[in-house]
């Protein structure tokens, strides 16, 4: 993939993130205001010092006025972007490019979703008027295809794979339990997870991410300006995004054990950032654990584990908060919650805290140090075989 990237050209100088959860007393306007104000305060500026905005939301508003109205912005450019569950990362990516291009000095990427007002279980889609031929499977069903396929391909017993899935949920709940901004701040036992009612295929309730309200925001400027606003900015090392041809549902060659979009975007991001050994070089990763088998497969697609071995590494604790490579130390989509438009920026918020040593001591990861200053965020949109993937890499050091 021919992408030269914008390594070290822009930096994050401020961030904000609301609590995620069933926020019955807050609307999308409130969430946007809370996240934008927190981000601006952390950069030591007013929201009116920002030159341009990228608003990510899937179904909580349309057009830039969805942000300019609640913030009462004075005639600033606001672009609303949507890219399914990768929407928040997409807002961030476009804001970074705008600043890197020189078009604006300071930009904000902000994502929001207000999912809990619908009264429905799970996500409701947005789609054009259809011909009625789509099978209408739910998101958990679409992702549940991964589990039996992975088990079959690598000879893992189905019960054992269920244990692996439960172990991922267990880990992410452990992490969320220590995070005051997470939706579910409670540890859940392996037994509870494993025995939960089934939603689709082998996926139980605890294998699914939290349907949630929330917002998160980042403020970006050119690297040369960063220290005017922030002592320890996060430098953007890589931004990669791909949309696949939706081959999975129509290609008999697809086996539901990998996301080709992730493999491609990860390779591109690693090249942009000069990473050759992601597992050793990254200090942490925030990945799109929309369902537990997704996180399992991502460990292989992102190069954190050899093909067919991630399930063992999960059981060995490799990706635990105190493991070799902490994955989703903030609780992930599973426990922190998944307000679509906000999730990509929420992942960056955890990198912002952890890499800069601002996470509370009880949940600070111990992998950050000399030679290990990078964090990865990964966002997936769509379903296995028919989606989009974002991989971003940020770090605290230049070069």
């Amino acid at each position: 993939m021919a992408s030269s990237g914008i390594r070290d050209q822009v930096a994050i100088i401020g961030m904000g993130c609301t609590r995620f959860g069933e926020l019955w007393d807050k609307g999308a306007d409130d969430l946007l205001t809370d996240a934008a104000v927190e981000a601006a305060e952390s950069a030591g500026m007013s929201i009116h010092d920002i030159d341009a905005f990228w608003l990510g939301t899937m179904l909580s508003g349309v057009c830039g006025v969805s942000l300019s109205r609640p913030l009462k912005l004075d005639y600033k450019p606001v672009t609303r972007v949507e890219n399914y569950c990768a929407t928040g990362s997409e807002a961030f990516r476009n804001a970074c490019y705008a600043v890197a291009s020189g078009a604006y000095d300071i930009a904000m990427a902000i994502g929001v979703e207000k999912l809990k007002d619908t009264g429905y279980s799970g996500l409701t889609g947005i789609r054009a008027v259809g011909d009625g031929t789509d099978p209408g499977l739910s998101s958990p069903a679409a992702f549940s295809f991964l589990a039996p396929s992975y088990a079959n391909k690598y000879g893992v017993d189905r019960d054992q794979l269920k244990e692996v899935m439960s172990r991922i949920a267990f880990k992410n709940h452990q992490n969320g339990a220590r995070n005051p901004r997470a939706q579910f701040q409670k540890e859940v036992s392996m037994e509870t997870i494993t025995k939960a009612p089934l939603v689709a295929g082998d996926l139980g309730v605890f294998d699914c991410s939290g349907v949630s309200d929330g917002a998160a925001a980042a403020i970006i400027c050119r690297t040369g300006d960063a220290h005017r606003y922030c002592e320890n900015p996060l430098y953007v090392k890589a931004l990669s995004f791909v949309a696949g041809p939706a081959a999975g549902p129509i290609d008999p060659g697809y086996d539901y054990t990998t996301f080709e979009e992730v493999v491609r975007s990860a390779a591109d991001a690693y090249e942009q950032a000069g990473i050759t050994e992601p597992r050793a070089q990254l200090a942490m990763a925030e990945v799109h654990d929309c369902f537990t088998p997704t996180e399992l497969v991502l460990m292989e697609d992102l190069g954190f584990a050899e093909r067919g071995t991630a399930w063992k590494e999960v059981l060995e604790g490799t990706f635990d908060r105190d493991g070799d490579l902490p994955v989703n130390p903030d609780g992930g989509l599973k426990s922190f919650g998944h307000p679509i438009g906000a999730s990509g920026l929420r992942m960056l918020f955890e990198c912002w805290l952890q890499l800069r040593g601002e996470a509370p001591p009880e949940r600070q990861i111990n992998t950050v140090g000399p030679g290990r200053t990078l964090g990865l965020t990964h966002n997936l949109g769509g379903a296995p075989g028919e989606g989009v993937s974002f991989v971003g890499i940020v770090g605290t050091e230049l070069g």
Partner: protein
Amino acid sequence: MSAGIAAWGTYLPYWRLQRSAIAGVLGSGGGKGTRAVASHDEDTTTLGVEAGRRALAVGPGAGAVQDLILSTPDPAYLDKTSATTVHAALGLGRACGAYDFAGSSRSAVASLLQALAGAGGGAAGSGRTTMAVVSDLRTGLAGSPEERDSGDGAAAFVCAPEGAVAELVGRGAASDEFLDRWRVPGEADSHVWEERFGEELYVPLAREAFAAALKDAGLAEGDIDHAVVTGLHVRAVKAASSGLGVRAGVLAPDLTAAVGNLGAAHAAVGLCDVLERAEPGQVIAVLSLADGADAFVLRATEALAGAQLARAAAGVLSVAEQVAAGRDDLSYATFLTWRGQMRREPPRRPDPERPGAPTVHRSERWKYGFVASRCQVCGFRHMPPTRACLNCHAIDQMQPERLADVPGTVATFTIDHLAFSLSPPVVGVIVDFDGGGRYRCEMTDVRASEISIGDRVAMTFRRVWTAQGVHNYFWKARPAGGPGPDGRAGDAERGD
């Protein structure tokens, strides 16, 4: 070479309700045997499509049909023609007419007589190849004899100016205006008058029509080799049958013990059953009691034996095979739910949106005909059809391919407890089709606990759901080898 019935097909749905299951829940009623039950995703249109597919599997075929008549007392729509749905699903030609004979049971026999008349009409060889599809889905109130004794099913005949397996040699009718069984439009269940009244009226009407048909054919009662006598008035049918004067053993088995009384479709299904056993030269009489009586006499031609063999070779299921293949462990609660007699808590999900009329029309060949596309440059098959090739990226190099009769294999599957369905959970399958192509669709006529990777499946036309007054029809996978057209090895390469 002669005009007449050139091909036939029947469809009996997979599910059977044991009549004893009714008594098990209600405490009374019920009885012995089973009735055929259309699934929650079937209606008279889809039942008709499945029967039609079987009728077109052998014989003149879809390309030859010039007129289509769909007859049912339970049409999926009023004002809008349902025969056009059947027409589209069967892949009939644009120049082929499509008409409904809807409303009364008696129209079903009329549709077959009309098809025969169309095929044989006018000067020799000038008739139109006409397809008659008859379909019925009968419910009745919980605990009623109607519910217990009825069944669901469909039959189809292709009548052609030549190549007949059975030709019409005589017919007779008798009409009278009286109240026996009726429904005001909008009502789901029939009213029935006190049955001895109907019996008194029906028996003479049946005798008159039968006698007229024999006279028209120049035959006597003793010349009849097979007699099919049907009607929703069970006592009248019994009385009329016993007084026919035909030889012993000529009366065809009435099938009601196993599948129930199929209403408007029963005479047609009974005739198909006879065609699957009859020998060339034999005389077949059909007598139908519905607001009067209709009788017609057919003579099997020399072509019948060949058609029977061709159907067996193509794996087209016979009535007897379908009767034997039914699955009888349907619970009464599920039956009531499917029929809308019991409202159940749905998943906490949005109701489906009705499909858009222009959107549906643009994808008519895919949605109704299950026509995919194959890249002429590299051979990759696309489902749904696309303009750009996934494999070689060629644009607009596609050849349409109908895959409705091509079986496939389950690559993987899931059980979806969250998705909308009248009968959750939804079974989602990824199907790899013989000869290439993959599609993700819903699977039906299967229990969630009984499906495995590698299972063979065939496609079936179903009503997926109804939203805001619009029926959403599309194809689903079902286990191959059960009732339903195709799904056997002999069909693997058809459509390629």
